């Protein structure tokens, strides 16, 4: 019964992750027994409308799941799931807004390690302030709705009548992989993704961030990087920005628990573009001489060797990523083929 599966899936999303499978298995067994009794009484399966009425009677998924949560006193169990949802969305929006503003300010005004460190150091304070205001607002709602229910109806009533038909469709398990992630893990990925992006944007101005003390060699050496590295660099920036946006969208959609296979494959496939850009460079001209007329005779052989090594390195990377992609695309297809063969 698809509607029951969708209902249980929606309940599961609001349950504590370490107990959700066990709770859902028990809830399913009880609900299926109840359904059997109802159908035996009627002598026919329930219609969609009757099933919706039955599920509506069970309660909204978030509220059903809330009963399995520990009791809260500052914010009551009825309000707590909504508080948690609003807190997550607000903090995520706050960190995104702060990240965008900070990145623009740093790049435009004073690019430097000190600015990045200061921006990162301010983040916990901002998150705590946002969380504090949200908590305070919800504590006030709880306080007033308990004392003046005629003036402050529960938030659950403000959201309008709940319908089982509005439940999200069943997720395609075939598109997910890996162990389920916690919300904190997913948020940490966004935060570190943002830090990585800022670091990446600072590297052209401060090569020290990438090369360490070796950055001094860039000025002293007779070699310089070819313009292709700028193309490669901006592709890397775009790829990281895309990944960051994708993760933020997943967080806002509430789809952070499982990694999407499609997303993973898309990122790996797009990741091949900068590698391809480098491989297509004519005559492997990745590193050039600053003064070919003066240094050509002395460093010509070294230059050729460096460029060949870089080319070989990128060929190896390209082959490894291609093999990985082929394996990840082919494996589920092969499994599907085996399952189909087994059912024949």
């Amino acid at each position, binding site marked *: 019964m698809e509607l029951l599966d969708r209902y249980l899936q929606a309940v599961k999303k609001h349950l504590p992750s370490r107990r959700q499978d066990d*709770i859902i298995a028990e809830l399913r*067994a*009880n609900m299926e027994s109840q359904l059997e009794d109802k159908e035996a009484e009627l002598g026919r399966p329930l219609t969609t409308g009757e099933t919706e009425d039955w599920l509506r009677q069970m309660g909204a998924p978030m*509220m059903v799941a809330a*009963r*399995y949560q520990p009791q809260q006193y500052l914010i009551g169990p009825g309000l707590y799931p909504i508080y948690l949802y609003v807190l997550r969305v607000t903090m995520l929006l706050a960190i995104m807004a702060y990240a965008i503003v900070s990145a623009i300010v740093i790049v435009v005004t004073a690019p430097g390690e000190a600015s990045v460190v200061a921006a990162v150091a301010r983040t916990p304070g901002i998150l705590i302030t946002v969380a504090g205001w949200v908590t305070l607002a919800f504590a006030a709602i709880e306080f007033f709705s308990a*004392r003046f*229910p*005629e003036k402050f109806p529960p938030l659950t009533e403000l959201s309008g009548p709940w319908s089982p038909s509005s439940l999200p469709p069943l997720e395609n398990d075939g598109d997910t992989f890996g162990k389920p992630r916690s919300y904190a893990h997913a948020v940490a990925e966004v935060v570190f993704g943002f830090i990585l992006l800022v670091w990446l944007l600072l590297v052209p101005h401060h090569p020290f961030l990438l090369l360490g003390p070796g950055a001094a060699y860039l000025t002293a050496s007779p070699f310089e990087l070819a313009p292709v590295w700028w193309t490669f660099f901006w592709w890397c920036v775009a790829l990281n920005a895309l990944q960051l946006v994708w993760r933020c969208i997943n967080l806002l959609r509430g789809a952070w628990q499982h990694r999407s296979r499609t997303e993973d494959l898309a990122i790996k496939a797009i990741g091949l573009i900068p590698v391809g850009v480098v491989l297509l460079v004519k005559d492997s001209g990745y590193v050039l001489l600053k003064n070919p007329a003066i240094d050509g005779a002395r460093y010509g052989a070294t230059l050729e060797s460096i460029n060949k090594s870089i080319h070989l390195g990128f060929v190896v990377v390209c082959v490894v990523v291609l093999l990985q992609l082929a394996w990840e695309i082919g494996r589920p297809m092969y499994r599907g083929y085996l399952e189909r063969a087994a059912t024949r």
Partner: protein
Amino acid sequence: MTLAENLFENLRLELRRGCLTLAVLVELRQEHYGYTLRKDLAECGLAIDESTLYPLLRRLESQGLLVSEWREEEKRNKRFYHLSSDGEQMLGQLLEEWNSINASINTIINRTL
């Protein structure tokens, strides 16, 4: 919902909360899984929501008053609960308390009428 209705609902819930726990403990002297337990309680006139009963069973189990096991019945895996030895001891104490409160309330009602 008016303030009076809200107050009544809160008091009714508070009053029922302890009674439901007691009824569940009494009923689980015999083994049940969630749905049949709910049916038995409803037949005795004590209807209880699924969303209240099933988390309550979990809570009582985590407090050591119930024990449970997954078992297959009628081609379906179900979680069966019954009273633990600690639960039996606790039930004895709670029934004593219940009878004492009941007797006191009756005495108070009769005296004030």
